[in-house]
């Protein structure tokens, strides 16, 4: 029969729902309400894992999220998840789990040979060795170490599940739904305040589910049920089970992880597996309870050694007797509760070994009771087979048992109180680190505050819940603390059994022993942080929840310091590990960042355009005529048609800023290098903008649409930055100016129509009352017009291509219609759409600067644009652009570059060297910024910066591209390659 360790009655499991699951290929049975750990124990599976360094056999130490040992891989295939704690994994039908970090099997693991070598593998051994010979580290030692370490295998392939992010707001967040948390939520909830009660487990109740206690006249679980029912009836209370508050952040922001569907095989359709919350809470109560401390003694890591409360939890909550002949090892009266529960469950308590000689509590029945005694070591390897104990008088005894239950007092779960820099403070009375300076808005209740008694805990929760909502303006009432059954809490921790035999583990998962800590101290690693880092204590997946405090105590003992002097390391978020997928939510794959589409996108797609990312935008790169047309051929065709006939390009991505007010001209004079206040209505001017540090930040055109109405364009990439910059200039620097502006980038669809036939195309669209002849609407003219029978539009006679060109803007919703109308109108003239490649080629042919030149490292002077920096006025960046370095004669300056052989394919990022010069930073003349194949020149051309470039026009230098393995001779030339007189542009 299966489940030999399952009790026939009792517990909070549902015997009507049997579940089947697999561990390491073998099938077992459990019940709904089980965790993987409780179900394994019900089936007497004690060996479940191997440790990190020594590959020691490990079992189940705890019944909660503090578990250091029982880590498994859960699920299979793309859903496989490493390092899952069996103690918190809820059982579901068909669950599949595998042990990890072992080869070839869990039972027989070759890695255990490390245990034999352990005399070498003391803490920090690797810092002293593996240095000889030098080359061996990457080739031999490191691969070996990496393979041996690492616990679970990385997941493979795409995660089929989804994750969500969510936000929640409340007056009071209660963290933990044990007795203190339930009481706090109840007191606050009854007042009408918005309360969120979160607990990491699937059931509310915390420790009340594990212990046999009485509250009022109800059993613990019944009290929980009644309280939960009342909370659920309050519309202002939100109960969030399976939700871990993993971190506290500034100003009452709490990070939470809800495991929405971890307890089923696969999430139902449209539901996420997990959901990460930011909870904004005015106040919070931390009621996270406490974690029981293990003892440190010989072979205390053997399967079958368990914390006392964990053992009670398996018995009372899961109706499982983990082991049937148990030795109780205790420094606390809690150990006797474990003995009682074991007996009640029909198990045998072989002895109570109480480290306190002066313990006053008596043992149940006639159980052997050794006071002032200690366990020296556990016998057995893959399962406890007995213990060797030292009695008070020094006598040594061997005791038969198959399990050990340890109770060594409590470590309050103060972790969250440290997330904003709080330091726990040692308290001699409770023998515990208690919350120190806690984050603003947070209060601590119950065991987390060192109040370990049940009545005290309930009182804490009620009092805090009530007083907090009172402070928030609600009225708490009807709060009385119920009576509880008597309990006995005395304890005197024993930090380690010094006379132990065998390895005494402090940090189970990382295999850190007491002697490792002593060694660290001996070598001078006396600060807790040094000790932690040297030994790796507390750095495993459990963050040392069961280990840290014992480690500190042993360090204190070794260095002759008290606990308070030793202090603690800092607990960091998250409280328990959080899946990266949950924190990314929907921001994965194509959803990583939004995708911005231009108004002509759908039309361009229909044309078979190839798109490319430019920032968040997708823009047409080129429009291949046939499937096989290369980008280069397409670009050449698009340029040739545009320059000989007419082309159209979507330029809606350029930033557009609508400025109004009587001081816009003055404002523009201050932010642009040039003068704009003199710009007549109906005209456009090119503008260059510097940062205050004197480097160019952006360029574009600004049009004056009326006296007090202007429109600025920015580069695509610079749109957001320029907007913030202008707002800074206005709101912070010159708030007295009468201006207002707003971004209208998304509101306007804008197309550039360029080429000798551009006006011919346009005339067909523009309503006849608007004259657009060359005289009526010359180069750099602008104005509001209507097109296609009354649709409002704006027309700008500006050109990036060097051709006669217009940009026409309409309300975004007409964007799609307009591109189709332009193409129709242009058909008779042989119009082509052109993409970014052609756009870029034409601007390089014209020597216009763009993104690669406006790289934040160039000044107007570097770009040959000093002529548009007005010398008559100040502007942003003016003074800093005149620092000595910027005026230095050998500063690289923009020039054009033509290869000696027109077929030489120039490359962006190549550097320049003089002929015969050896590569060196001193000889480096500059670099190639932009390149293109020029259909007009039938040659590759480039723009770049070259030291003293303007003085060297006509000279030949080398463009060297080491990383692509090319080198070409290039001639330095003027950056304007095509139509230098600008005849074409004026039409």
């Amino acid at each position, binding site marked *: 029969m299966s489940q030999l360790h399952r009790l026939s009655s009792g517990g909070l499991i549902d015997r009507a729902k049997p579940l089947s699951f697999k561990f390491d290929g073998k099938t077992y049975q459990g019940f709904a309400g089980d965790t993987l750990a409780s179900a394994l124990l019900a089936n007497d599976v004690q060996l479940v894992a191997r440790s990190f360094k020594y590959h020691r056999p490990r079992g189940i130490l705890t019944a909660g999220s503090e578990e250091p040992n029982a880590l498994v891989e859960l699920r299979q295939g793309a859903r496989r998840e490493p390092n899952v704690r069996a103690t918190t994994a809820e059982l579901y039908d068909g669950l599949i789990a595998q042990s990890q970090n072992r080869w070839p099997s869990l039972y027989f693991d070759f890695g255990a040979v490390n245990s034999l070598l352990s005399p070498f593998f003391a803490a920090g051994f690797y810092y002293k060795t593996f240095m000889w010979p030098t080359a061996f580290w990457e080739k031999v030692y490191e691969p070996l170490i990496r393979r041996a370490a690492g616990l679970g295998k990385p997941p493979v392939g795409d995660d089929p599940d989804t994750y969500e992010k969510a936000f929640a707001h409340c007056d009071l967040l209660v963290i933990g739904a044990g007795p203190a948390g339930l009481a706090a939520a109840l007191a606050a909830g009854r007042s009408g305040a918005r309360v969120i009660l979160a607990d990491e487990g699937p059931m509310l109740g915390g420790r009340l589910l594990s212990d046999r206690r009485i509250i009022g006249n109800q059993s613990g679980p019944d009290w929980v049920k009644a309280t939960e029912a009342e909370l659920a009836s309050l519309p202002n209370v939100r109960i969030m089970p399976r939700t871990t508050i993993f971190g506290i952040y500034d100003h009452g922001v709490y990070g939470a992880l809800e495991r929405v569907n971890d307890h089923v095989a696969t999430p139902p359709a449209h539901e996420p597996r997990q959901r990460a919350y930011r909870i904004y809470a005015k106040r919070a109560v931390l009621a996270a309870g406490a974690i029981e401390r293990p003892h440190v003694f010989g072979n205390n890591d053997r399967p079958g050694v368990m914390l006392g409360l964990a053992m009670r939890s398996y018995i009372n909550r899961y109706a499982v007797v983990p082991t049937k002949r148990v030795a109780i090892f205790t420094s606390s009266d809690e150990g006797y509760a474990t003995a009682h529960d074991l007996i009640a469950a029909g198990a045998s308590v072989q002895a109570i070994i109480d480290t306190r000689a002066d313990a006053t509590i008596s043992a149940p029945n006639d159980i052997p009771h050794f006071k002032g005694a200690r366990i020296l070591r556990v016998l057995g390897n893959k399962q406890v087979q007995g213990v060797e104990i030292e009695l008070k008088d020094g006598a040594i005894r061997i005791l038969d048992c198959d399990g050990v239950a340890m109770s060594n007092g409590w470590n309050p779960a103060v972790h969250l109180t440290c997330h904003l820099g709080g330091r726990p403070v040692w308290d001699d009375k409770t023998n515990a680190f208690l919350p120190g300076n806690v984050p603003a808005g947070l209060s601590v209740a119950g065991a987390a505050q060192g109040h370990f008694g049940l009545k005290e805990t309930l009182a804490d929760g009620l009092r805090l819940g009530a007083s907090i909502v009172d402070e928030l303006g609600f009225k708490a009432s009807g709060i009385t603390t119920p009576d509880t059954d008597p309990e006995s809490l005395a304890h005197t921790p024993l930090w380690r059994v010094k006379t132990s035999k065998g390895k005494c583990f402090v940090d189970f998962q990382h295999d850190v022993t007491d002697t490792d800590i002593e060694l660290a101290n001996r070598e001078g690693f006396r600060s807790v942080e040094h000790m932690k880092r040297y030994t790796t204590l507390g750095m495993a997946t459990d963050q040392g929840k069961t280990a840290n405090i014992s480690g500190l105590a042993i360090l204190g003992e070794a260095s002759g310091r008290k606990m308070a002097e030793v202090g603690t390391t800092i607990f960091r978020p998250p409280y328990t590990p959080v899946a990266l997928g949950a924190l990314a939510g929907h921001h994965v794959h194509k959803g990583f960042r939004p995708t911005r589409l231009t108004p002509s996108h759908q039309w361009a797609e229909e044309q078979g355009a190839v798109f490319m990312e430019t920032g968040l935008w997708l823009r047409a790169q080129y429009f291949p005529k046939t499937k096989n047309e290369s980008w280069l051929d397409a670009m050449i065709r698009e340029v040739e048609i545009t320059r000989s006939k007419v082309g159209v390009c979507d330029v809606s991505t350029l930033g557009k800023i609508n400025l109004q007010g009587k001081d816009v001209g003055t404002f523009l004079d201050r932010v642009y290098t040039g003068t704009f206040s003199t710009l007549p209505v109906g005209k456009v001017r090119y503008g260059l903008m510097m940062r*205050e540090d004197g480097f160019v930040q952006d360029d574009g055109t600004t049009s004056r649409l009326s006296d007090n109405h202007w429109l600025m364009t920015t580069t695509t990439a610079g749109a957001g930055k320029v907007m913030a910059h202008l707002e800074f200039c206005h709101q912070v620097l010159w708030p007295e100016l009468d201006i207002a502006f707003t971004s209208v980038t998304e509101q306007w669809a804008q197309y550039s129509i360029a080429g000798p036939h551009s006006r011919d195309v346009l005339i067909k669209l523009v309503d006849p009352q608007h004259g657009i002849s060359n005289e009526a609407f010359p180069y750099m003219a602008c104005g509001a017009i209507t097109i296609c029978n009354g649709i409002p539009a704006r027309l700008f006679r500006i050109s990036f291509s060097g051709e006669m060109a217009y940009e026409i803007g309409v309300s975004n919703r007409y964007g799609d219609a307009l591109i189709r109308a332009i193409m129709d109108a242009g058909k008779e003239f042989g119009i082509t759409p052109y993409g970014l490649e052609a756009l870029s080629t034409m601007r390089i042919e014209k020597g216009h600067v763009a993104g690669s030149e406006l790289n934040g490292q160039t000044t107007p002077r570097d770009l040959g644009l000093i002529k548009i920096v007005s010398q008559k006025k100040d502007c942003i960046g003016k003074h800093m652009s005149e620092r000595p370095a910027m005026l230095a004669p050998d500063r690289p300056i923009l020039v054009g570059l033509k290869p000696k052989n027109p077929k030489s394919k120039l490359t962006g990022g190549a550097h320049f060297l003089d002929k015969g010069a050896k590569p060196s930073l001193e000889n480096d003349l500059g670099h190639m910024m932009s390149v293109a194949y020029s259909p007009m020149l039938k040659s590759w051309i480039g723009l770049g910066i070259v030291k003293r470039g303007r003085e060297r026009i006509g000279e030949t230098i080398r463009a060297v591209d080491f*990383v692509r393995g090319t080198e070409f001779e290039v001639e330095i030339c003027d950056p304007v390659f095509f139509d230098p007189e600008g005849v074409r542009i004026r039409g």
Partner: protein
Amino acid sequence: MHYSVFSIISQAFKGQKDWKPVWRYPDPKAEYEILIIGGGGHGLSTAYYLAKNHGYTNIAVIEKNYLGSGSVGRNTTIVRSNYQEPGNIPFYEHSLKLWEGLEQDFNYNAMMSQRGVLNLYHSDSQRDDYARRGNAMMMHGVRADLLNREQVRDVVPFLDFDNARFPIHGGLMQWRGGTARHDAVAWGFARGADSRGVDILQNTEAKQIRVENGKVTGVETSRGFIKAKKVGIVAAGNTTRIAETAGLRLPIESYVLQAFVSEAIKPLIPCVVTFGAGHFYISQSDKGGLVFGASLDYYTSYAARGNLPGVEDTIEEAMAIMPSISRVKLLRHWGGIMDMSMDGSPIIDKTGIDGLYINCGWCYGGFKATPASGYCFAHLLATGESHPVATALKLNRFETGYVIDEAGTGAQPNLH
């Protein structure tokens, strides 16, 4: 105590009982020739090289906390010299060369692992930018390889090559880059300095630099006044707080940079990988944890902890290049204080005060610079002259305009 095969074996048989403390806990002397403020990686390496290269023995390092308690013990451990600007390249390359011989030099295994640093690019223009950088490195003889998409796939096949928002086009690889065990670097330098007679004064806080007639005379500390002929500030995020006590104002702001580590898993990521369509870097430690980070939290701060938006942004970037790690769990995240300079590059220089020297502005890049920073600062302190590889790292470059702005983001520290 020298570490050798012999000492390791003999201690294994003696139960590790005879290892000696790696450093002393001395009391401060009344006076030192040189006093270093800051017992982090750079301060300790400065002391080490002052002792080793320049023969100084009467020097001390004061550290307000435990040694190595600052950024040297909380960074993402990346070591590289793949810089673009001529002011930076020789310095970082010098540093990488020192890294390559460091362990034998200080007889301590800092687990320097030259596993490669791969910068992914996601567009043609970014490819050209990376080519520019790679070629700048090659100008100085620093090897860089421009990989195409398939070559990247050979190295890191588990990245998202098919469904990424910003497709991977290729990468710039520096094979000599890699990682090192951060704490061990501090400990190795501390041990090396201590054994050469340097006093490392832990839990000793600098309160006030004393200046008389334009000349430094010493430092008021939490353990009393300590006289010194020369004082070097190597206080990273706290630089301006210390400098202020001598009346110095600097082009530095302090920000929090978060770092992250996942639970340990078996080997997955063979090298350091960075994401080009954001600002993200990841590697895997020898213990198995994925170690990663991204941009600063964008506000000035002296609190060594970050906030959730930074956490989420970072992890979104992680998932953007390798969505398969969605089920790997974040184990811990923490923050360190970065001394962000106005151009994103460091400062190693004299100040206007006689005898007072500064070493700061390390921004994101302090760890990889640890050896050369100490090497060059020691040279400056000992000789009064900038080391030849650090001549560009001047304090007055903001005045003169000779800024070293790798990213071209200007005098806005949180954008570097």
